[in-house]
């Protein structure tokens, strides 16, 4: 096991994680609309809407023509007037004729903005349309849907995608998700150690299997706690802490299955501590470990695919499809995964070497 003592991959993890943490601090969130006010409108009167955006570049020289539409289903409607007041604010006037109100189903409008630098971004259901009860005439002109003409739909910036509900927490992709990758790789290393022990019968392979489970559980706990706080402020806004825990265990299959899998490995550690005889302990726990890994794979990779979950990529879809990650996220996500896995193995190597010294002393 010379990899325990070589240094290059430890340095690689330092470089990768430094890059990832720096990237998670310095790369901005992409353009998005944070609010449109007022949030509701009656028919037949002209409203002036104040639109507040985030990280948009309306007055930038490269922005070109800034356009706005109000969208209902597939229909785009141009505002009566539109002007940008600063980089991140704009003003639009708009009115809906009462004669047309029944064509708005559902009775809400999305705000969609496009410019050449920021691309197209939108706020779903930005304005609720309050329908009039009696309609005989109208004092505003009928709306005609337009075909939007844009230069770029995609932004020309280096930024993370702006998603409603998630907002800045999209950066957690580099911290929460790789915890589970690291845990899986460590448990795989443990499986390899156990199989090697059963084949060769060397004590150091048993040490590898044991310590890898300990470090994997550390990463599992990290993944769990980070997932807990992330879900509290995204999926479960306004839900109390006790309800968050209950909902996660009952409603999110991935969370519940991961907990079951972790308990199997906790049982592995308890099993080890209950057997006095060293050779017997190593053999029994190695066999148990093979079965525990199979259950882990079933719980984490198979079970969540069978049913719906709040996690992206579950319910039949493979995780991390092209819809979940864009190119900027990828540039940091893959290094993050490798970096955290290497950090896990670094901690593992220290644990194993410590155990080796302990065993040498005892002999």
């Amino acid at each position, binding site marked *: 096991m010379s990899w325990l003592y070589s240094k290059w991959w430890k340095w690689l993890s330092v470089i990768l994680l430094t890059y990832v943490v720096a990237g*998670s601090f310095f790369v901005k969130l992409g353009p998005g609309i944070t609010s449109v006010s007022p949030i509701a409108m009656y028919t037949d009167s002209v409203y002036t809407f104040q639109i507040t955006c985030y990280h948009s570049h309306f007055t930038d020289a490269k922005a070109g023509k800034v356009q706005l539409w109000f969208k209902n289903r597939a229909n785009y409607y141009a505002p009566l007037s539109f002007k940008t007041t600063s980089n991140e604010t704009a003003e639009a006037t708009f009115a809906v004729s009462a004669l047309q109100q029944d064509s708005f189903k559902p009775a809400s409008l999305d705000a969609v903005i496009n410019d050449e630098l920021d691309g197209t971004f939108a706020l779903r259901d930005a304005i609720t349309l309050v329908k009039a009860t009696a309609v005989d005439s109208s004092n505003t002109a009928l709306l005609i849907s337009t075909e939007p003409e844009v230069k770029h739909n995609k932004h020309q910036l280096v930024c993370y995608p702006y998603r409603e509900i998630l907002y*800045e927490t999209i950066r957690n992709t580099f911290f929460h998700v790789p915890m589970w990758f690291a845990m899986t790789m460590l448990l795989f290393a443990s499986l390899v150690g156990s199989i090697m022990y059963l084949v060769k019968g060397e004590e150091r392979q048993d040490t590898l299997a044991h310590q890898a489970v300990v470090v994997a559980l550390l990463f599992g706990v990290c993944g769990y706690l980070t997932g807990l706080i992330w879900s509290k402020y995204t999926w479960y806004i306004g839900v109390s802490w006790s309800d968050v825990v209950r909902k996660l265990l009952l409603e999110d299959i991935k969370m519940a299955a991961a907990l079951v899998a972790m308990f199997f490995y906790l049982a592995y550690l308890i099993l080890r501590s209950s057997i006095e005889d060293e050779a017997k302990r190593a053999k029994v726990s190695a066999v148990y470990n093979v079965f525990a890994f199979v259950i882990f794979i079933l719980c984490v990779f198979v079970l969540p695919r069978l049913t719906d979950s709040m996690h992206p990529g579950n319910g039949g879809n493979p995780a991390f499809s092209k819809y979940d990650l864009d190119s900027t996220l990828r540039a940091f996500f893959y290094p993050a995964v490798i970096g955290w896995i290497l950090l896990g193995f670094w901690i593992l190597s220290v644990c194993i070497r410590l155990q080796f010294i302990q065993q040498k002393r005892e002999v």
Partner: protein
Amino acid sequence: MKKFLNLLLLTLLSLTTFAQGESGTNDFFKSNLKIYVVVAVLTIILSCIFIFLFSLERRLKKLEEK
């Protein structure tokens, strides 16, 4: 060492009560487009790893004392 671990645990404990105090209004963690959730996540990961490293050091110390 044990004192230090206790101190660390207590600081962490205060962090959770702080979060609970906010759960009624949800102001702090939701401000600035929820950036503090990222801070909390990084804090959790770092403190878990630090606690693990301290426990590792305790094992090492036992060996040294033998």
